[in-house]
């Protein structure tokens, strides 16, 4: 097979194969999440859906790995040389690490759908930067690059997973706070027990929240015998779900997501060849993110307890922070070897430094009593905006030694 055919094959493996598999797996997993509450027959369907989602996710990761290998063969080098390749690998690392962590370490497979959705979004963003396979500049042709770039790309992928957890945490927490506020108003203005949601239905709240059911009882939904009160419980549960969802105002969420994404996506507005093409890309990115946020809002009632997502965000950020630190130091060492100086405040170096500071801020906020919870999660979201912003700006807007976007 010639390198042209290989290039074509690698492109097909990326789009539509991998992207569609990730999206499909994500949808199936998210459907499975909705069946964790309800009757026995539904749970059986949920189990089947989870199995199907697992198969699709494994197929998707396989196709993604195959894409990387075929692309590597087509250009006879590791696919880590330009923005498209880096973004694609970032998605691969994020999805595989996220899924393995959730499935085997944390045993929370119900969240897989969100990680896959995040992976699909990053893959889609990668298509905006697609570049045909080609050779590498000689200065990039060294094992230093492999070491430095893979650590940073791995860090980016895991940071992306952490962002998903932070965003979900904020959504669920907002919903719960709203429900609690409503209850305290209904209960005569007393704030005592305001956060107690069990008065709608104890059993229902337990089923919706595996965490509150106690960690020893295993996965949710083991005891699914229909009892006479179930019908009434179900109605109350659905009411609780609606209340949770209502707690997250959709217009505010959509507007906030649009504006938040704009903090990063303006880069496409200013750097595209024509105004209309730039506007198209800008709107595509923003509206996709808004759609993802609204989908996530619909799933708010099925999310696990806030503490679980808070913990997940912290662990993933800590791991990514280690990768980022080592990767940045490796980059400084490479710069010393290659350019004869270890740190020169090049745009990308500044970006790496900013990202490092932002995530250091998040970890410190987590360690400080006063800023825990929502405050820390917001810092985590802001840190991800810094990460994506500096990544795009340093590649597209300010040209420095690190700008390999067009190569």
């Amino acid at each position, binding site marked *: 097979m010639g390198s042209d055919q290989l290039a074509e094959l690698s492109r097909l493996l990326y789009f539509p194969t991998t992207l569609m598999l990730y999206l499909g797996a994500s949808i199936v997993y998210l459907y499975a999440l909705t069946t964790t509450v309800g009757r026995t027959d539904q749970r059986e369907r949920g189990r089947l859906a989870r199995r199907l989602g697992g198969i699709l996710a494994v197929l998707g990761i396989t196709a993604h790995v195959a894409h990387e290998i075929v692309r590597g063969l087509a250009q006879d080098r590791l696919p880590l040389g330009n923005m498209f390749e880096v973004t694609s690998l970032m998605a691969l690392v994020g999805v595989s690490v996220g899924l393995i962590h959730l499935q085997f370490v944390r045993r929370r497979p119900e969240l897989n759908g969100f990680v896959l959705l995040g992976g699909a979004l990053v893959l889609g963003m990668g298509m905006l930067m697609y570049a045909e396979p080609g050779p590498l500049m000689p200065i990039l042709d060294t094992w230093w690059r492999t070491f430095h770039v893979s650590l940073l790309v791995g860090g980016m992928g895991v940071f992306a997973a952490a962002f998903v957890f932070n965003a979900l945490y904020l959504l669920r927490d907002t919903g719960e706070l709203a429900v609690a506020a409503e209850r305290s108003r209904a209960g005569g203005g007393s704030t005592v027990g305001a956060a107690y949601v069990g008065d709608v239905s104890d059993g229902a709240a337990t089923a919706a929240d595996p965490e509150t059911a106690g960690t020893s009882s295993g996965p949710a939904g083991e005891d699914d015998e229909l009892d006479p009160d179930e019908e009434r419980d179900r109605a109350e549960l659905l009411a609780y779900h609606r209340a949770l969802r209502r707690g997250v105002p959709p217009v505010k969420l959509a507007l906030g997501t649009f504006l938040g994404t704009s903090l990063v996506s303006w880069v496409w507005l200013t750097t595209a060849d024509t105004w209309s093409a730039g506007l198209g890309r800008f709107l595509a990115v923003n509206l996709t993110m808004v759609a993802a946020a609204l989908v996530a809002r619909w799933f708010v009632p099925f999310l696990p307890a806030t503490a679980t997502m808070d913990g997940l965000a912290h662990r993933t950020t800590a791991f990514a922070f280690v990768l980022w*630190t080592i990767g940045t130091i490796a980059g400084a060492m490479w710069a010393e070897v290659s350019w004869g100086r270890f740190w020169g405040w090049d745009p990308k170096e500044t970006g790496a430094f900013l990202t490092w500071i932002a995530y250091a801020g998040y970890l410190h906020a987590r360690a400080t009593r006063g800023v825990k919870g929502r405050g820390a999660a917001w810092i985590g979201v802001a840190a991800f905006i810094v990460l994506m912003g500096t990544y795009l700006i340093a590649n597209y807007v300010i040209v420095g030694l690190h700008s390999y976007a067009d190569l």
Partner: protein
Amino acid sequence: MTESSLPPQQNPPVRRRRAAPSGPVAFVWESVLMGWRWLARMRTALYLLAALAILSIVATAVPQEPNVPSTVASWREGEAGPGVGVSRVLDAVGAYDVYGSAIFLAVLLALYISLTACLIPRIKAWIRLVRRSQPPVVRHLGAQDERTVFVTDRSPAEVRASAAELLSRRRWRVRRHDAHADDPRPDQVAAETGLWAREGGSLVFHLSFYVLLAAIVLGQLLTFEGQRGVVEGDPGFRDTAVSYWSYSPGRWFGEGDHQGWRLELERFHVDWVRDPLAPGAGQPTVFRSDVRVTPQDGEPFDAVIDSNRPLNLDGTRITQLDWGYAPRVVVEVDGEVVHDTFLTPVLTDGGFFRGAVKAPAADPDVGMDVFFYAFAPDGEDGRPVPTGAPWADAPLLVFQLFRGDLRLGATQQTINELDVEELTSQGFGALRLGQSLELEGVTVSFPELRRWVGFQVSSRPQLPYLLAGSVLLIVGLLGSLYASRRRLWVVTMEEAAAAPRTLVTVAGRAFQRPEAFEEEFADLVAELMAATDGAPADPHPTTELPTALPAAETTR
């Protein structure tokens, strides 16, 4: 003695306060204390980190004088950027040199003071912890995270000995406790791990910033960096203070610290993907210099400098920085040669190389603004068509000739810049390789084309310290994030029913990452059972377990 039934004002203070200073001294002292306490807060540290981040954003958005002085100059003159007025404001706040500005240094200083203020009490507490603390002996094994019971035929003392040995081998801190009359707490081995490592790791991480700062300051003093362009086949240059084009030594770097070697460029290899349709068209594929080095007192030797393989000469590093074509330009005025050297024009954004000829030997001075196109083949009408391609298959030298005063020494100018203030244009000319041209009595010829390479020579004695600081940083980070604090108790009870049987309760508590502790705990229990020939306990024990009491009460 304090009497609690009396009103507070009738009781004497428990401890007399130190006589507080008064007047202006008190004001200053109180302010310093307040500032120190403010700096010691975590929130302040976060604000300062944010300020540092904002400053580095400013430094990215505004051109920095140490990096791109020419861009800064054009911003100041209003030729580019937001205009002269804004530029004055930027200058006033030091935005053109953020990393050397007073604001940046102040933030950095505040951050280090804040770090110190945070660390001093933490280090004290940590030392106290390491010196005094020992695992707590438990009275009742209440609700711990993990708990398992097994039985064995070994005696309680034997079981405790094996448990202590097993745990010390796994680097737990172990404390044995044997019950006696005054102490109702049961026989047990109490153990703890990760107590020092987590906080210690965090301390090492934060202390590594002092190492890094010291290394950077040391670097500012001892470092040396110089750039110099060398033409292929030229005699090259010697490592002395005067031979560099740009030269920035640290404050403590003296002229005697130069090593005095000579560097010649024998050949420079560069090539590109020339097929315009191939992927990565125009990208360079080779970028390598063959050089000859003559040490001050030694035999000359050949060496290769590649993109990622700099040359190391006793701690001095030589890297390739940039390159260009070196056309030899000969200028004759009235039959007399006034200029015969290789130019070193630099690549511009337009895809051509730009340089200058300065010949003060002529009267009046001859100056030439030189544009070099590497690949400018003849078009259909016979006129050269400049392309941006960098390979020299059809080189073309275009120049504008000037006569007048070059103002050498009067103004700051680089070798590739011409000061045209006192010069008058004599017209334009274009030359192919080997051609010559006469213009207004001046004969210009272009007999030879070579290449030149800009080398960077740097000496950084601080690198090992920086590396050590980085290693400390990573090790500390790993410790602070991944060392987990755990406690474990192995409580033994003689079972009354069957005399030689011992009932062993193992309980553990995870302060961090409880999900990872599950497996560690199971491992430990399995190993302890294997060491003592234990068997899982009867699920419905006849004797009362030490867990029967509800409260988790631990005492030291």
